[in-house]
Every structure is written in structure tokens, then in C-alpha cells.
């Protein structure tokens, strides 16, 4: 077995031959410090993806890499449309899990003394945790509209406006969703959960901007030091999971049918042009759209909670959507390969699209500076706003990291928090938390994650995105 090779201070190579059948090398974006924490399983997963048919250039992983199902989380892989595949494992169970960030006209001092009230108001405004039910029950026939329209559906219900859509990746809607391919089960599971946050690492957080690294980009994004922002991290809930579960079965049969040999069952896939792959993409797009509709609902209720709690008008609050990014999705995109443009199906699983200045897919307001990239951290430390770069286009298909990346198991996190008053520790740092689950706080302690600052540092040194601002949590709502 070949050895891992360091090719520069931020990149580790998994050479062809590391595992039999690799078509391309693996590239893991980690420095010496983060490399020490990488599980052997992750490296193997990066190598496994390199064995899939039609993979172009490299099987990549971002510095927040941790082991996932089939593909590592933090994985980026692009495949040719004629010779490549589509794999649900390259997207993940939580299709279009993503992040959105609201800016505001508020300053830290405007909310500091009201954090507890805000936490309670947000907790009640946005259903979260085990056993929570959505406030919206989709009527027969409405689901279809959600699958086809995404965030636009929510806006049509009177929750939000056109600017929100303009400030969402892909306008909050992927074309080519196929509602007819959604199983009755997925549909039923999804209809009761729209407008819910979920649980686990998903959250809603009131933050303050505590550092600006790039004045020009920060200005373009409407960010300033001391400003209050709100971050929402969640996905397509049980709906996306059911779609993934349904299609893993379909893809398992397809992989056999097309004679694709797989080192791991969770890597099941089908050739891009096969009906199975096209069906999956149609269903995946419906789930991606559901997720955007979901985040748009949650954002609307967040704005309402702020208005009621602070008794301020929408204009005074200025809570505009800065941007919304997907970090679990597969998309057909045009990229330059060996000097010519090629259409590729890019899988990002726990990786964020990070398009450079001038890219036609960016809204006009950001076209000069590049795409806002939103990186949530753990509840005790920080989150970041980055911006996409040309270098990301050259190296990583316009992709970067998506978060901190977990290092401790839930059990280990609970053990590490034994005898400690986690809520109190956070309060001492000025952070108010509300959570539905009794164990959630212990499971989600800061130490359970890599330090997001280390992760962001690597992508910034590698040039695949640039730091714009750091956000510190003030009030956290978790499931």
C-alpha cells in the first residue's frame, strides 16, 4: 500500500495505488496539525471514491473531513457525464443540508440584555427536537409545489420576498425536480415536517460580528463589526432521508445491473445517463427544494420573533438574507478541465460551493466580490463568513469546507461533560442556550468538534476561499 504524501503545507495526497482500482489520486486539504486528527477510515473513503467510474482530476476532501457513509463528510468529487456516475452517498442522507445567514441593523448592545427572551421566543417560533411537529401541514397537492418551487413556494405563502430568493444558492430552487418519483412514504414523512429545525448538529443562532478580515467583501455583504446576525443550519429533514433511503435500494440494484464494482455498499451508484441516476437526481432536486422551502419558513418565523420581541419594524431591523448555501448536493456544472470547458456532475457532501467573483450564477450584488460562503462552527466558539475565489475554481470545482467537523463520539462528548455545568459554562461566555433534548448540550460541547478556526485557516491558506468575517454565538437554539 502506497503512503500518504504531503504535497504542500495544506494538502495531503492519497496516491493512486493506495487502494486497488483508483483512477485518480485523492487530495485532502489539511495542514500538519489537522492531519494528526484524521481517522484511517476517512483516508480509505477518499481512496474508495477515487475508484468510481469517470471521476475527474481527484477525489477531494476538505479540512473538516470526518468519516461518513460511503463518501467521507467534507468530500468533493466530480464525474464526467458520459463516463461517470451519480451516487446518493456523495450527497448524503440530509439532502441540501445547508446554512443561511441573516444580517441586521442591530448592534450587539441592542440585544445583549434580551438574549434569554429572544432564545425563548425563537425556541417557540421554530419547532425543533425529537417529537416536534411543524406548524404547517401540507395539504394534498401542496407537496408537489414545494418539490418543484423550493423557497419560492414559501415566499408565495407570504413568508419572505424576491430578494430572499435572489440571495439563495440557485435561487432556492433546482430545475428538474421530479415529484412523480417521490415515494408515498417520503411524501408523507415530509408533509408534517416542513418548517422544523430537526436535531443533532442543526441549530438557529443569534451571533455578533467580532472580526472583519476583508473590508471590501464585508461591505458588499452588508456586514460590520459589532453587528447582530442570525445563522440557520438545517436541511430536508425526514423527507430527504426517506428519498436517500429509497434510492439506496434502487442504486444497489443499478450498480449490479451496470457491473460497477464497489468497495463499500454505501457507495452505490449508477452511470449519469442511466434512468436510475436521472431518477435519483430528479428526486434529489425535489428534496433540495424542500430544504430551501424549509429554511425559508424558519427564517420567516425568526424575523417575526425578532419583530415581536424587540418591538421593531422590518425596516428598522433590516434582517435581510445575506446568503443561503447548500452543503449536501450534486449539481451539473461547467468547469475547466485541461484547458477546455466540460460539464461535470459535482458531488459536494459536507462541502460548500464557493464561486469566484464574476461567476454568472452569483446575484448581481455579489458578482464583483464573489460568493458568500457560510461556515458554522460549534455552539461555544465561532462561525465564519468566507468568500469564493478563482483558486477554488481551479483546484476544487469551486468548493470549500462546510463546518468544523466532529471529532468526539456522542458518548465521549457526554463523558467529557460529566460533572460540568455546560449551560453555565456557556453563560459565563455570554452565550444563552435553549435545547429540546436533555443530552443535546453535552453531546454538542465545543470539544466534540475541531476548532472551526483551524479548518477555515487551512482553506484560506490553500486559497480556495478567503476570510471575510468571524461571528461569535450569543444565543443558540438546538433540537
Amino acid at each position, binding site marked *: 500500500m502506497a503512503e500518504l504524501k504531503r504535497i504542500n503545507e495544506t494538502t495531503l495526497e492519497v496516491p493512486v495505488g493506495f487502494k486497488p482500482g483508483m483512477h485518480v489520486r485523492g487530495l485532502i486539504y489539511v495542514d500538519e496539525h489537522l492531519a494528526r486528527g484524521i*481517522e484511517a477510515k476517512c483516508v480509505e473513503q477518499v481512496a474508495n471514491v477515487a475508484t468510481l467510474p469517470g471521476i475527474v482530476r481527484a477525489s477531494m476532501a476538505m479540512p473538516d473531513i*470526518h*468519516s461518513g*457513509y*460511503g463518501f467521507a*463528510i467534507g468530500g468533493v468529487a466530480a464525474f464526467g457525464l458520459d463516463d461517470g456516475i451519480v451516487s446518493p452517498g456523495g450527497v448524503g*442522507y*440530509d439532502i441540501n443540508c445547508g446554512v443561511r445567514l441573516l444580517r441586521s441593523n442591530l448592534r450587539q448592545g441592542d440585544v445583549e440584555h434580551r438574549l434569554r427572551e429572544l432564545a425563548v421566543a425563537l425556541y417557540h417560533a421554530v419547532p425543533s*427536537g*425529537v*417529537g*416536534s*411537529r411543524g406548524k404547517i401541514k401540507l395539504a394534498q397537492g401542496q407537496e408537489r409545489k414545494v418539490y418543484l418551487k423550493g423557497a419560492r413556494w414559501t415566499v408565495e405563502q407570504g413568508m419572505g420576498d424576491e430578494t430572499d430568493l435572489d440571495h439563495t444558492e440557485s435561487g432556492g430552487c433546482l430545475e428538474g425536480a421530479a415529484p412523480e418519483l417521490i415515494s408515498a*412514504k417520503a411524501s*408523507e*414523512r415530509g408533509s*408534517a*415536517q416542513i418548517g422544523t429545525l*430537526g*436535531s*443533532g448538529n442543526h441549530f438557529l443562532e443569534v451571533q455578533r460580528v467580532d472580526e472583519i478580515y476583508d473590508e471590501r467583501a464585508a461591505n458588499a455583504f452588508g456586514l460590520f463589526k459589532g453587528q447582530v446576525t442570525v445563522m440557520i443550519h438545517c436541511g430536508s429533514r*425526514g423527507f430527504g*432521508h*426517506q428519498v*436517500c*433511503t429509497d434510492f*439506496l*435500494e434502487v442504486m*444497489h440494484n443499478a450498480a449490479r445491473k451496470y457491473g460497477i464494482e464497489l468497495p463499500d*455498499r*454505501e457507495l452505490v451508484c449508477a452511470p449519469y445517463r442511466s434512468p436510475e441516476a436521472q431518477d435519483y437526481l430528479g428526486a434529489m432536486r425535489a428534496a433540495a427544494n424542500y430544504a430551501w422551502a424549509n429554511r425559508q419558513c424558519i427564517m420567516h418565523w425568526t424575523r417575526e420573533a425578532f419583530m415581536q420581541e424587540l418591538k421593531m419594524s422590518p425596516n428598522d431591523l433590516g434582517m435581510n438574507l445575506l446568503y443561503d448555501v447548500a452543503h449536501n448536493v450534486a449539481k451539473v456544472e461547467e468547469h475547466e478541465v485541461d484547458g477546455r470547458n466540460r460539464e461535470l456532475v459535482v458531488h459536494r457532501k459536507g462541502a460548500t460551493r464557493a464561486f469566484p467573483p464574476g461567476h454568472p450564477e452569483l446575484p448581481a450584488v455579489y458578482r464583483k466580490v464573489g460568493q458568500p460562503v457560510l461556515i458554522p462552527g460549534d455552539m461555544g466558539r465561532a462561525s465564519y463568513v468566507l468568500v469564493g475565489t478563482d483558486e477554488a475554481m481551479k483546484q476544487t470545482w469551486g468548493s470549500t469546507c462546510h463546518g468544523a467537523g*466532529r*471529532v*468526539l*463520539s*456522542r*458518548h*465521549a462528548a457526554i463523558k467529557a461533560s460529566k460533572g460540568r455545568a455546560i449551560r453555565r459554562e456557556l453563560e459565563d461566555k455570554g452565550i444563552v442556550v435553549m435545547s*429540546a*433534548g*436533555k*443530552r443535546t448540550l453535552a453531546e454538542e460541547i465545543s470539544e466534540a468538534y475541531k476548532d472551526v478556526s483551524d479548518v477555515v485557516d487551512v482553506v484560506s491558506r490553500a486559497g480556495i476561499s478567503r476570510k471575510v468575517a468571524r461571528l461569535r454565538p450569543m444565543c443558540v437554539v438546538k*433540537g
Partner: protein
Amino acid sequence: MSYEYLDISGDAGVRATGGSLEEIFESAALGMYGLVTDLNGVRPENTVTVEATSRGTEGLLVAWLNELIFRMDTYGFIGGKVRVLDLGEHHIKAEVMGEEFDPERHERRLLLKAATYHDLKVEKRDGGWVAEVIFDI
């Protein structure tokens, strides 16, 4: 027949052991419910019959647990007792006794979203059976 929890980064897993395949399907289900809430608080108010199909025993275990997750996530149904009525290579039929999850009364632990094929095991060992399943949360 028993279960224990696997310590893995990020998600959660269950190792079920038993004298027969039926037993590990039952204990894997109970172990799974135990991740969601304290089983002592679940009353056997309703009995539902659950069926699942797949190819092979491993696939069937995943399909079975995913069926239970579907019922939990969609109807809030949480089981406290499980009895396998019929188990073949491709099909399982079982009775689950439990009730609707009530956030006021039931402890809220993890929200499970899928049983996965990741490091999935169903093996005969020392005259009994052992299964390991990892859940996405």
C-alpha cells in the same frame, strides 16, 4: 437477547445479540428506540403490525429498522416491546407495542433519521447471533 451501544464519532450505533435471528431483529429495534427515549417511559398502548422486505438478511435488518424510523418520524409512534411474528430471508412481519411520542412525558434523546449499511454486520457467533447497525442522526 440484549443490546448495547457502539461508540462512534458523529452518529450512533447498536450491537444486538441473541440466540436467534428473530431475537436480534427484536433487540436491534429496542436498542434503536432506546436511542430516542427512555424505554421505561413507553407504554404499550397500541400494537402495530410492521412488515418490511429486502434482499438478504443484512438488507432486511436495515429495511426493518428504516420502516420503524419512518413510523416514528411520520406518526410519532415509538415502541417499547417488539415481537417478530415471521422472519424469512426477504421478509419480516412483526408486532410493535408502544404509543405516540409525547415530548412532555417522554425523554427526548436522539432524532434518528436512517439506519445505514455502514459497517453493517449480521453474524453467527458462538452459537448465537450478533448484529451491528449504525444510524444517521
